[in-house]
Every structure is written in structure tokens, then in C-alpha cells.
């Protein structure tokens, strides 16, 4: 209907004080939700990046059938032999959606310094792929350029001339008295020889040399041992890893475990939003290639319960707050529009007598609600973006649960979150308005005309 928006706008202006209050409720509700969604998106991105890159799960990991559950207990049967690795790597590299492919060997054993030994979790990684994973733009976006370099020393892949370079997790390095040794430019000459662990200068001696003895049960059941040279301390992605983690080139740990197998092959995608389609295609391709494999996404609750559980918690919290905010906003709008409908009963009757249908009458009020929401959402978006910029400027840092590395808090909502929240509020206010005016619009025209304004 021509002129309906003009009429709606003028009615908004006419009751500007009441509409201002309602608009503020909508604006602050919207800003709150947009910031909450911004935080939710940030938490998801943080956890995703941590899972995919820091924990080397990739967006998707291919195990031997049942390998996720059993590869470490019985690697001879559930780890991937070279020919299968080749097929999987080939299938992954053939897909243009894949940015990087990495092979990983997980295991357990002990690490000792000659006096003390500790249980360890080993991760064998490919030295030529690892720098691109650690230095991935998503990692740098979140942790910054300084946040992706080793905590001390060098990365294991950045140690030319060292035969068995290993990187230790922070606490493990401390337990082994190697937290200062990793900064040594080169190994001291000669073997350390027998140690007197009760000697008063033992800590100094241990921290003066980088050698760590690693022992493990090989995949054929015998005992394997190598001497690693700690070259750096890496940033652990969880508290558990900080106490037990050891990184080394894949071939070093293959030597330790006396195997040519790997636990899984991970694929890193260019765009994580393509994961579902990619997973389907890969499963089909592997079936065609005759590879019996288990595919686990980074958000698989079995493979990554921390991610799934935390996201479920964040999602539940966001949902709860959304319900609260939605109720406050819906009742504010309902209240304002009910008052408007009562006050304007006679006007509604007049419009009906002039020929407005019930739908056209409701349309007028819905236009008012839509305009009010649009203005409030614009103001709310400005508040949300301003608040998020302020949070960024304050540079508030925190350590995410399970991570030893502080990160900067971001709550800047994405364009998608802003648009999605706006749509949500529009639907909410329109629904509340519809409920508020529906009964009046259905009333007898004569009764409306006869009503005395409140």
C-alpha cells in the first residue's frame, strides 16, 4: 500500500518517548547478543584452530579402521602401513580443497635425564609440513607471530645438523632439568658419562646439556631406546600435553618404535566450511581405492571430546542467554505495541471504515515494528562494534582452559553474526507485534470506532 511506510514512520515519531524506551531495549539486547555471538564465534575459532593446528588433528584425520581407539595399544594391527599411507596421502593431495597433508605417529614411553625418568606422550611429525602448520595464518591471527614460535630454543624442524632433535613440553622440560639446556647453541662435546645424581651440582650439570634418553616398547614388543637432543620447548595445547609431550621428526619416533607405520594421516583444508562435503567425498574415494579407514573430523565427539564438550557448553550458555534476552525484548515490544493498539483503537476503527483490511491494518503496525527494529539494530550494531573495539584496545589476555598460551580476548561479531542477530530480532519483534495487534484487528469495526482513547 502506497504511503504505509510514511504512516508507520510518523506514528513512531508521534510516540517517540515510548518507542525510544522500546528501541533501547531492542538495541541493547541486540548489542548484547551480537557480542555474545562474537564471543561464541571466537571461542569456536580458538578451539578449532587449537584442535586442528596445535593438536595436529587436521580438519579431518584418517586412521586405519578402529585405529582411533586401538592404534596405540596394538599398532601392528591398527596403525597405517606405508602402502596405505601412500593411498591416503595420494587421495588427499589430489583434492584441491586440501591445503596440507601430514602424517603422525603417536606413542607412549619414558624420558629420562640420567637421574630421573617420566612418562611421555610422543608425537612424530613431518618436519617439512610442520612449519606450515605452526605458522598457518589462522594460528598467527589468533596467537600472533610471537605466539607461534617456541617458548624457548628452536622448533625441532629448525635444527640442522642435529641428528635426533626433540622438542619438549614446558613442564616436562622443567622436570627433566632441560628448560635452560634447550637454549644452548650446540651440544657440549663428548658423552655425559655416568652421573652422580646425589652430587650437589647435579642440577647444573643436567641443565648444561640437552640430552634426553627416550625409551619405549616397540611395535613388535621389544624395547627401543634412542638419545634425543632437546632443541626447544614447544607451546603445549593442553595441560596434560604440557606435562608429557615430546615432539620429534616422524622418522625419529619410527626408529624408537621400530616401525614404518603412522597412527593417522591428517588433512588441513583451505576452508573449514567445506569439511562436511569433503568428508563425504573422501570416504567415497577411499572406498574406491580399497582402503578400509576410519575418518574422524576435528569436532568428532569421540576423537575430540574437549572440543565437542566445550562447544556444547558454550552453545548451551549462548542459548540460555538468547532465551533471556529474547524474552525481555519480546515483552518490551509486546507491551509497547499492546499499548499502541489500545490507544489507537479508534484510529484503527477509522482506518477499517475507510477500507483497510485486517491484514493492511496489521501491516501498518508491523511496519512500525520493522522500522523500530531497523533503527534499534543499527544503534545496537554500533554499540556492539564499539564495545568489541574497546575490548580489543584494552588487550585483555587470558589462558584458554587446557592451554598454556595466553591469547587476546576478541568479541568482535562477524558480519554474519550481526546479520543473523538482526534477522532474529526482526522476526522476534514482528511476532510480538503481530500478537499485540491481532485481536484488535479482528474486533468489530463499529466497536473500534466507538472506543474512547485511553
Amino acid at each position, binding site marked *: 500500500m502506497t504511503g504505509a511506510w510514511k504512516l508507520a514512520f510518523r*506514528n513512531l515519531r508521534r510516540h517517540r518517548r515510548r518507542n525510544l524506551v522500546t528501541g533501547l531495549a531492542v538495541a541493547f539486547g541486540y548489542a548484547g547478543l551480537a557480542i555474545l555471538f562474537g564471543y561464541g564465534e571466537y571461542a569456536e575459532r580458538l578451539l578449532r584452530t587449537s584442535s586442528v593446528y596445535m593438536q595436529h588433528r587436521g580438519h579431518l584425520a584418517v586412521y586405519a579402521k578402529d585405529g582411533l581407539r586401538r592404534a596405540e595399544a596394538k599398532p601392528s594391527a591398527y596403525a597405517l602401513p606405508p602402502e596405505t599411507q601412500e593411498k591416503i596421502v595420494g587421495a588427499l593431495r589430489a583434492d584441491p580443497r586440501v591445503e596440507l597433508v601430514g602424517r603422525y605417529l603417536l606413542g607412549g614411553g619414558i624420558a629420562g635425564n640420567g637421574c630421573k625418568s617420566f612418562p611421555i606422550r610422543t608425537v612424530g611429525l613431518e618436519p617439512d609440513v610442520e612449519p606450515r602448520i605452526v605458522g598457518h595464518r589462522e594460528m598467527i591471527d589468533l596467537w600472533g607471530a610471537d605466539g607461534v614460535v617456541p617458548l624457548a630454543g628452536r622448533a625441532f624442524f629448525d635444527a640442522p645438523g642435529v641428528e635426533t632433535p626433540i622438542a619438549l613440553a614446558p613442564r616436562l622440560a622443567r622436570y627433566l632439568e632441560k628448560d635452560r639446556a634447550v637454549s644452548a647453541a650446540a651440544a657440549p662435546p663428548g658423552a655425559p658419562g655416568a652421573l652422580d645424581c646425589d652430587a650437589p651440582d647435579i642440577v647444573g650439570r643436567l641443565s648444561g646439556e640437552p640430552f634426553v634418553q627416550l625409551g619405549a616398547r616397540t611395535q613388535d614388543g621389544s624395547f627401543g631406546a634412542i638419545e634425543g637432543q632437546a632443541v626447544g620447548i614447544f607451546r603445549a595445547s593442553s595441560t596434560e600435553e604440557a606435562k608429557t609431550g615430546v615432539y620429534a621428526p616422524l622418522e625419529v619416533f619410527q626408529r624408537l618404535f621400530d616401525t614404518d607405520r603412522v597412527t593417522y594421516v591428517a588433512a588441513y583444508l583451505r576452508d573449514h566450511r567445506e569439511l562436511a562435503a569433503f568428508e563425504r567425498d573422501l570416504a567415497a574415494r577411499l572406498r574406491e581405492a580399497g582402503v578400509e579407514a576410519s575418518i574422524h573430523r576435528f569436532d568428532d565427539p569421540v576423537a575430540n571430546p574437549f572440543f565437542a564438550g566445550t562447544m556444547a557448553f558454550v552453545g548451551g550458555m549462548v542459548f540460555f542467554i538468547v532465551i533471556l534476552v529474547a524474552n525481555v525484548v519480546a515483552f518490551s515490544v509486546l507491551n509497547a505495541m499492546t499499548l499502541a493498539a489500545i490507544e489507537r483503537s479508534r*484510529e484503527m476503527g*477509522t*482506518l477499517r*471504515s475507510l*477500507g483497510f483490511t485486517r491484514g493492511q491494518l496489521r501491516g501498518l503496525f508491523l511496519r512500525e515494528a520493522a522500522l523500530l527494529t531497523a533503527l534499534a539494530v543499527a544503534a545496537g550494531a554500533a554499540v556492539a562494534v564499539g564495545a568489541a573495539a574497546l575490548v580489543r584496545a584494552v588487550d585483555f589476555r587470558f589462558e584458554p582452559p587446557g592451554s598454556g598460551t595466553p591469547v587476546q580476548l576478541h568479541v568482535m561479531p562477524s558480519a554474519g553474526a550481526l546479520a543473523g542477530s538482526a534477522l532474529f530480532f526482526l522476526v522476534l519483534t514482528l511476532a510480538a507485534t503481530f500478537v499485540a495487534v491481532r485481536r484488535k484487528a479482528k474486533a*468489530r*469495526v*463499529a466497536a473500534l*470506532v466507538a472506543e474512547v482513547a485511553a
Partner: protein
Amino acid sequence: MAEALIRLEDVKRTYHLGETLVPAVRGVSLELHAGELTALVGPSGSGKSTLLNLVGCIDEPDEGRVLVEGVDVATLSDDARSGLRNRKIGFIFQSFNLVPVLDARENVELPLLLQDLPAAERRERVDRAIADVGLAEFAHHPPDKLSGGQRQRVAIARALVTYPLLVLADEPTANLDSETARRILDLMVELNERRKVTFLFSTHDEKLMARVGRHLHLRDGLLVDGEEAREAIA
């Protein structure tokens, strides 16, 4: 004789006030023809407004039929009745009932916005209606900047702008001083004579009644003849 514009056949309307039933119109039959200027006369509470509401299709009878150009209004959907009101019936209310956020001209234009008219034709019709009621210089005044008489003129222009078959006016002069009331009635009489606009208006003002050819006397929800009405008043 030509078919009646409006025909009411034994129309009844009762209001429910809590558990009390109040019969407002108790069986009225009447016909209105094109070009008539008819006054609906009766004391307060006699059912004048209810009868106008029924004729104007903004209320529905409990019994009986209301026919507009031979069509039983009860057979129409709500949207169709809205369309009928928009195209065939004009309303003038005692309290003017102008939309406060629109100026005089926009108020007059309002019913035309529901019709598929080119903007130029809409403008022309509005200009003419406003000129007919002598308000050209107040066209852009909001209702709260107009006097009571001017507001009622805007309401008349709004009722006329769609070229309706019938204009219904419920006590159109009740809220006006006597001079303004006389001018408004002059305007209605002139529009009836010059433009052949059919009017049905309710009033209990004797001076106004004297200017109108046809009187319908309503008492206790029933139409009575002039004699009975005079006896009732006596």
C-alpha cells in the same frame, strides 16, 4: 423505481453488556435511493449510531439482511466488505476521527491509497475534494492545527474523495458551534444538490432537520412515523 442503493430487511442488533442484553435496533426495514439527503432522527439511545453502523457495513446484524446495490453484505468476506466500504461508502464521524500524524491533505488522500489509482489522478481528486469543502489553504495543516469545523470539513472531503454511493454521517455537527454546524449542513446540502451525493446523517438537532427533505424517525430501535415521533417527544 430504480433499485435501492441500500436496503435493510427487518434488521436487528442486540448488544451484550455482561449478562444484560440491550436491543439497539429491533427490526428495521428501509431503503435509501441515489441522490437522497436523509436525516435519521431520534433521541440519544434510540439506535441511530447502530443503524448507521449497519448501513455502513462496519457492524453486522444479528438478524435480517443489509443489501448494498442488491448484494447481501453477509455473503461477503471481511476483505470484500473492506473493499466495499472503501469504494462505495464514505464515513463522517462526530469526533472527526482524523489520523493525527497526517496533515489535512494526507487524511483526505488516505482512502485513495487503497485503490489502484495513478498518482496524478489521486492528486487531482484530493485537490478537488479539498476545494469542494473550501480548505485549499489549510491543506498542509495537521489536524491539531485546525478548528473543529475545519476538521469536519476534512472528514467530509475524505468521505467524498472516493466518489462513494453513499455518505454516512453520525451526528456530524454535534461537536460544533451552531454557526459552524449550519455551514457544515449547508455544505452537505450543496454537495447533495450540486454533485448528487447521497447522504444519510443522524441528528437530534431540530434546526438541521428543517433543511432536509426526508426524515427517518427512530425510537427504541424501531422506525416510527413522524406523528408517533412527535408524540414521543411531547
